[in-house]
């Protein structure tokens, strides 16, 4: 009888300890989700929020991603927009030029299969899915060259698909952007 009571008591202790741990575990999980929500809402750090589509078979004919519109542009309101496409096995433009310490919007898509843009040494990282437009906000705090490999398998030439980002002085960029042309650093 006493052994049975003893067993009963130990079972209660076991259950109590276990409940305590489960509570801690739940608190950890809830905290993680809340942290992510807070950073997302308060600091507006989040993955791409909107879904935009585009027809990859007509990219080269008209619209935002026609070849003459690719590259970096300084808008009248001071914003910088970079437009690029990925295709087997290169980016256009292969060298992207942007100003330092400036909010930049990268808009990109794929002309054929799934690719990805990753700028080394930064957290700029997005997929390029044909049919959809990827948009990322970025800001570089240091001038210099950054490698920009394709980060998604896109068939046999994937390992050769490396682009470049060149971050230059603000005034230099503004100077070159005068007249509203599309800038790149290809061949420079």
């Amino acid at each position: 009888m006493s052994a049975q009571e003893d067993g009963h008591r130990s079972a209660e202790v076991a259950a109590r300890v276990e409940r305590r741990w489960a509570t801690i575990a739940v608190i950890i999980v809830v905290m993680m989700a809340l942290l992510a929500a807070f950073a997302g809402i308060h600091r507006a750090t989040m993955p791409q929020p909107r879904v935009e589509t585009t027809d990859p078979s007509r990219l080269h004919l008209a619209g935002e991603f026609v070849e003459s519109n690719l590259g970096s542009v300084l808008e009248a309101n001071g914003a910088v927009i970079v437009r690029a496409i990925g295709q087997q096995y290169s980016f256009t433009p292969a060298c992207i030029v942007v100003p330092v310490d400036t909010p930049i919007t990268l808009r990109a898509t794929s002309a054929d299969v799934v690719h990805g843009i990753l700028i080394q040494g930064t957290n700029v990282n997005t997929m390029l899915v044909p049919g959809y437009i990827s948009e990322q906000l970025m800001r570089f705090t240091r001038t210099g060259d950054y490698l920009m490999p394709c980060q998604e398998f896109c068939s046999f030439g994937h390992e050769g698909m490396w682009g470049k980002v060149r971050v230059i002085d603000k005034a230099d960029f503004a100077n070159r952007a005068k007249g509203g042309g599309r800038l790149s650093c290809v061949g420079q």
Partner: protein
Amino acid sequence: MLANRKLILAHFWFAFSVFGVALTLGAWQMFIRSPIGTWLSNPELYYRSLTAHGTVMGYVFPTLVAMGFGYAISEAALEQRLVGVRWAWAGFWLIVLGSVMAIIPIALGRASVLYTFYPPLIGSPFYYIGVVLVVVGSWIWVALMAINLRVWRKAHPGAPVPLAMFANVAGSYLWAWTAVGAALELLLQIIPVSVGLKATIDAGLARVFFSWTLHAIVYFWLMPTYIAYYTIVPRAIGGRVYSDTMARISFILFLVVAMPIGMHHTFADPQVGAGFKFIHSAFTALVALPTLLTVFTICASVEIAARLRGGRGMFGWIRALPWDNPMMLALAFSFVMLGLGGAGGLINMSYQLDASIHNTQWITGHFHLIFGGAIVIMYFAIAYDLWPHLTGRELIDLRLIRTQLWLWFIGMIVTTFPWHWVGILGMPRRMAYFDFGHPAIAPQALSVTFSAFGGFILLTSGLLFLVILARGMRAPQADAGPYRFAIAVHQPATVPVALNTHALWVALMIVLTITNYGYPILTLALTEGTSVPAVYVGAQ
């Protein structure tokens, strides 16, 4: 009592043989893209190898281990001969047929699309149909597990389902449902294009379908490992399960929340909006819960074993554990890798942090540490534990077994730690070679070389594993007695219906999948003009 030993051995031998081949390919890949290899004149060979490695390690190997182990659990835990043995063999042969059908086009370079398919890249239809056959074969197993449990329930009305079988059936249901995502992608989208019925495909929708499978499949791989934690380890080291109830809750949580979280693989994708990305991120945090509970329960179960062996003190009991027992060693290694890999996983599923490591070598490092490390080392332990019962012969060379486990652990750490590091530096995945002469890439050369050596250690360990099993087939005969599972400190006489059946939880799993996937899939399917021309692989 294991009546269908041949069936189980067939599953294990086929699983471990293809594992050996895929492991060799993996080690070759580590070598050829490292600074110690020379550049491939034909990089396409690398992607053939990568497709084979992924297809075997992702679809064939863990599925067969789960099936073979599942049949063993059904017979040993329920103490009942397997019902539907003919069907089980049919399932096995379907998987063999599917594997061969898939591997031939891969070897010919007609299906170098990686195991994740990546439409609009399209390979030979035989590859996709082969994968479908593998999945169909495994669905036969799912049905058999449900049928066997039902037969047992009829004979034992109201009795608590043995924990091992409860978990095994939960794992089988999880697999049945999570495989539906990739099945829809293959049957509705890829195969029609591959055989020429259609020429365009919605790549964004395909990625969402695949994410349905891609995350929960990991928990299906994990199930045998967790079943071993709870129902084999405590028995093998002379302890008890701390809590039968907590074990059931953990498996139920896996069943329910492993499923509706897959879109954390698409954080960087343009075809899913921020809302569903956040929901999936939060649910992924939730899936840490059963693992946190398991770590607690298993550590407590192990402590019981240590104290029964005379261990004392707050931490002094750790020394009293049977460290020469391979099961103890495997568990310890598995937990270390689970802890490190799990911490990395929390970074991957984070709404914000993912961007810094998405699709870099960090990810490759992460899932090799979790799957190849924490999970597969327990597959080894399961095989060692079951082998004497399957062969009727003793596994004598414990020293060799311990060496094999140590090598696997060391190899996995040496492989994956540098992998994580170069990932943080921004090294992308799945590249046949790197230009280590480039000043920006040169600093990664040393890390990649380390990884390659880790790959060689893993290969050595894997081959040693096969040698040990093969020698076990010819060892002196010995009766291993009936196969037993661990019992709990407080073995329940009755279990609440909710913790003894699966229906409610399967329903919840399906409902959560619909709420978390229904809207994104429907909107993508209804959006016009997002289908893009297929790009055929190896057609020339």
